[in-house]
């Protein structure tokens, strides 16, 4: 049963969780595009993954960690809001593609397992 409960599947599903969290955060930024003084947030999890990999030395279990950080997009507008709509939309599109590609990989692995069970 290595293919069902192995490291790759666990990592893939953790990355999907991360992408879902990032989508939530980016949606929050878009909802607050006209809120005075609002500072956009983002999720940094790719860096956490690299760090975790280095710490694990390749052998141990790797944990995907997500951090929500405040990240101004650019200079503040007159109302103190620092959300840039175009940048947030680009991030959102990127994150959706990222999420779907992780899911596609999971799906493919499940399909491999399925064809192994069926034997045809």
């Amino acid at each position, binding site marked *: 049963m290595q293919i069902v409960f192995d490291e790759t599947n666990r990592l893939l599903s953790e990355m999907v969780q991360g992408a879902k969290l990032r989508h939530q955060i980016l*949606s929050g930024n878009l909802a607050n595009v006209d809120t005075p003084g609002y500072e956009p947030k983002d999720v940094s999890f790719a860096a956490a993954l690299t760090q975790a990999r280095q710490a694990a030395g390749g052998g141990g279990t790797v944990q995907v960690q997500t951090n929500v950080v405040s990240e101004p997009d650019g200079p503040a507008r007159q109302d103190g809001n620092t959300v840039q*709509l175009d940048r947030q939309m680009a991030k959102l599109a990127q994150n959706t593609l990222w999420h779907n590609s992780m*899911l596609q990989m999971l799906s493919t692995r499940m399909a491999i397992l399925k064809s192994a069970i069926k034997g045809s």
Partner: protein
Amino acid sequence: MDEVSALDISASGLVAQRLRLNVVAENLANAETTRTADGGPYRRKVAIFGSDGGESFGQTLGAAQADAVRVLGVEESDEPARMVHQPGHPDANAEGYVMLPNINPVLEMVDLLGATRAYEANITALQAAKSMAMKALEIGR
């Protein structure tokens, strides 16, 4: 369910922007209203938005939470009314000036465009959340 709260957050953005559109429409419709229930001309209204951050349940638990947007209220602008010389107008004062609402149609149209774009951005985020959830349902199919 992350998708559900992502949908809720986008919905809060839609609600806020739609309210802003309603306020703009009200302002434009009343650009020449000289009599109101409070007496005097109509006053320009502005929707005030606030972020729903701070003391949310998720943050108390240590998990970082995305912020929905909240409409804090609709307030009246305190800009002075426009004084237009129209001696024949029934609401003109002794010098022949009429107090017209403090509404600048150009400003309202710009606000209208901003609200429309922000509404569309929230729709896009909502559709992305929906497609992500649908994609997740297809695993193993």
